[in-house]
């Protein structure tokens, strides 16, 4: 208890203006470090029914492809212990629908958008980037573009792009060249090369790395002897994977390659704080939105209250402050 109070005694940031929650990840500036994860929050419009989603540091959109995509056969959802398997298969109505339909809606609500995109190959990433480039006043409308590199590289037998650092460098580099907005590389936890992939992303010019995407998982329905998911394999998310995500975030953040957006199983402000302390410059909240519709608001408030009660006036003081 006494320890808690003295943790920051040597460097308390006193300020008349209350608590600073804003963070910077490379060129990306966020009002606070809480970001909604891709694929779990639409573009933030639906959740505006539950709270003002403009309070979030940013909303990462679902991942958009060049053309609309059907996705995988149902069932696509399977509940597991403290987690959920999904095999949505990246269903989306295409980048043009985002630009014409979804972006204006989000804009109107003042939602800060991180646009997530993916392609089947480098050319498709480029094509999407060129379409994004045509958005008027793009820098005001889009905080960053996130490249979902955990999706299958069709040309390379379906392995994730992020499995091959060379591909990461090439795709990131190409999109960075086309766009004049910051680029984030989202990596897969299913390969054991996150550090190499992050280094490649930096070489390509990315401003930050998002980890982790879902972990490959599966379930069997013992009533029917069928896989729980139509696609057999799916992605596991939720608190079950939090320890795995934290280990990856910590291991990558201490390499100081790029700022890390940490995600995987965050359910409350305490979880978010764990990621920040472990070295994440910002955090993503995904699955929690399905269960606690106002999680984003709660987590931001929880972090603010925590800092206030500890007399820490700047959230950057806790980032990476793990005592090992």
């Amino acid at each position, binding site marked *: 208890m006494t320890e808690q109070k003295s943790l920051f005694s040597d460097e308390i940031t006193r300020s008349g203006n209350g608590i600073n929650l804003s963070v910077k990840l490379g060129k990306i500036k966020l009002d606070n470090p809480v970001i909604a994860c891709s*694929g*779990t*929050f*639409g573009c933030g419009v*639906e*959740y505006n*029914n*539950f709270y003002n989603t403009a309070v979030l540091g940013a909303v990462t959109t*679902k991942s958009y492809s060049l053309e609309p995509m*059907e*996705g995988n056969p*149902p*069932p*696509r*959802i*399977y*509940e*597991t*212990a*403290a*987690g*959920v398997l*999904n095999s*949505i298969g990246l*269903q989306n109505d295409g980048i043009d629908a985002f630009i014409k339909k979804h972006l204006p809606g989000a804009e109107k609500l003042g939602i800060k958008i991180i646009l997530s995109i993916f392609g089947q190959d480098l050319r498709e990433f480029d094509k999407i980037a060129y379409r994004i480039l045509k958005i008027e006043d793009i820098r005001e409308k889009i905080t960053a573009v996130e490249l979902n590199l955990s999706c299958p590289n069709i040309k390379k037998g379906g392995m994730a792009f992020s499995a091959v650092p060379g591909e990461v460098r090439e795709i990131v580099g190409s999109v960075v060249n086309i766009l004049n907005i910051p680029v984030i590389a989202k990596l897969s936890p299913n390969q054991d090369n996150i550090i190499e992939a992050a280094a490649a992303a930096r070489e390509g010019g990315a401003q930050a790395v998002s980890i982790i995407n879902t972990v490959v998982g599966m379930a069997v329905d013992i009533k029917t002897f069928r896989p729980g998911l139509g696609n057999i394999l799916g992605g596991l998310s*939720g*608190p079950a994977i939090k320890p795995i995500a934290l280990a990856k975030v910590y291991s990558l953040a201490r390499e100081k390659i790029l700022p890390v957006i940490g995600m995987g199983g965050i*359910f409350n402000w305490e979880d978010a704080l764990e990621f920040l302390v472990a070295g994440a410059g910002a955090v993503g909240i995904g*699955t929690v*939105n*399905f*269960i606690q*519709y*106002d999680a984003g608001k709660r987590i931001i408030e929880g972090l603010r209250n925590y800092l206030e009660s500890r007399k820490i006036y700047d959230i950057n003081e806790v980032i990476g402050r793990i005592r090992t």
Partner: protein
Amino acid sequence: MKLLSGEILSNERYGDNLYRIEVFSPYICNNAQAGQFVNVKCSYDGSLDPFLRRPFAIFDIEKKFNVFSILYLLRGRGTRFLSLLEQGDMLDFAGPLGKPVDLTGAGANVLLIGGGIGIAPLHLIARIAVRIKNNVFFAAGFKDNAFLRWEKDLIRLKINYAVMTEDGSWGEKGLVSDYIWENLKTFENYDIYCCGPCDMLKTLQNIYKNKKNKVTAFLEEKMACGVGVCGGCVVRIKKGGKGFSYQKVCEDGPAFNLGEVLFD
């Protein structure tokens, strides 16, 4: 749609493995329309077990008292939790969710076909339809007489109905689809709303393949978000000629045109 917390006014055994929970919620009572559902947190605050919310049809609304109710079958972990809640406890739910069923524009007669717990969303439709339609008829089929108590609630709606049970313990012995088959003529000019097990829906799809009735079916699929953002709850819906598109039960449904549903 809103995230809500409503006081539980009662949570009673309604039949074998069957419960009805009544929840105080002016917001739901004023805003929910026929065909909509709520997404319920079925664990204590802060608990992760069971993990996901569970969707439940709005069974009934009593505007006068600002009370809506859910009829639920005790099946697994989520409904076990529900069944342990007591009067005075708070229910954490979001709603109303789903696309409302538009009763105003349609025909003058309504036939409701329910199988088992599938009567739940139809009951609210019956209550609303009875005020604006000429004829409302409820055909319901069950395994046994576990839902017997429902007859009283049904009678209060002042509509005509027929009950079929597989074991003959209540109403007539047989399947509800047999009843429909035998009374095709009677219901020729009815708009139909149906909800029940997959087999029942498939049979009805066959029966009404070349009929001109407007047949709307309530579908179920496992949900994650319940609000249309995750793409988890899709079903196959015919698109134009031979193709299909995946549509979301939570946002595009739960009611779909039965003729367009592709079962696997």
